[in-house]
């Protein structure tokens, strides 16, 4: 049943998604892909849309994949899936806050999770790039390079960059 499948795929992303939206991207991609829910191109569309719309990336992804697969109910099932683990885990953590903060095991686990997160974000770059540079052309390459420089060196707001990139793309890549 498609609704249950959507719920479970996104619940898994909710359980194992450490380190915020960018680090969750590979999981979203693989999760959606393994059920034939999404192509590389659609994935990069989703990420592009998430950059210009508000809200958490994973919720955007759940809504996007769910709606495209099975309409409103699908979007609801997927979003519920991605939110449910957070909801349960945080509710538990509220009761055990002091233990949570002092736990040696959690500290140890994070010594390993943090470096993996870096690898995950790196993999997201590759997944994104596959579609962004599908046909190697100058303008997208320059935009990517320009983005890194503007955000890294000149601390320009990512939203401003993304909007500008959209305008440039519409004029030059259209």
């Amino acid at each position: 049943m498609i609704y249950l499948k959507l719920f479970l795929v996104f619940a898994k992303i909710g359980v194992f998604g450490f380190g915020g939206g960018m680090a969750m991207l590979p999981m979203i991609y693989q999760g959606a892909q393994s059920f034939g829910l999404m192509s590389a191109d659609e994935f990069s569309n989703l990420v592009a849309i998430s950059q210009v719309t508000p809200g958490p990336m994973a919720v955007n992804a759940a809504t996007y994949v769910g709606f495209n697969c099975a309409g409103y109910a699908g979007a609801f099932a997927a979003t519920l899936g991605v939110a449910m683990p957070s909801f349960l885990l945080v509710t538990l953590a509220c009761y055990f806050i002091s233990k949570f903060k002092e736990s040696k095991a959690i500290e140890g686990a994070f010594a390993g999770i943090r470096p993996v997160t870096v690898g995950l974000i790196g993999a997201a770059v590759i997944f994104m790039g596959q579609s962004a540079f599908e046909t190697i052309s100058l303008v997208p390459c320059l935009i990517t390079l320009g983005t890194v420089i503007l955000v890294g060196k000149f601390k320009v707001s990512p939203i401003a960059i993304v909007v500008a990139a959209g305008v440039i793309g519409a004029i030059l890549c259209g």
Partner: protein
Amino acid sequence: MSKLEKVKNNLFLQLFWTFFKLGLFTIGGGMAMIPLIQDIVVDKKKWMTEEEAVDCIAVSQGLPGVIAINMATYIGQTKKGILGAIVATIGVILPSFIIIILVIKVLAGIGENRYVNGALAGIKAAATGLIAYSAYKVGRQVLKGPFQWVLALLSFVAIAVFSVNAVWAIVAGILAGLIYTAVKEKKNGNGGESQ
């Protein structure tokens, strides 16, 4: 108290509305939301002390899942129990949910349009750059020694090249981290490590 004031002072409504606005106005996800939440919850609404807010952020970042949902659940839970958590979570999710469905419908309505496709191509290229920079930024913070480098590179190659499921990379990372800290602690005896 007038009826309007009563409605305004209803904590459930306040939770919903506060998180709805946060969901609506933060582009860039949970990390971008953190300073805003601190400002509203600690300074404006006085729902939490500075210290409680720090706990909330630590738990929200530490646990898996969507950081914005984690924070909404945490704050809703501490103010009004389970029902408060549900109300705040729905509030933070709803804007994304509505906007994404609208975008899909609008894009489908436009159909194949070269300007829309061009704009998407431009945004994709910029997004690739943003993610690359994020990898660099997090990497600079986290990759402090050979253990961290090896783990990051292994998980990158496993996922990007060999299509290993990202879940396994996380599980392997947890195990490696547990073993690493246990070994390090043994080596250093009871004195603990010196950074």
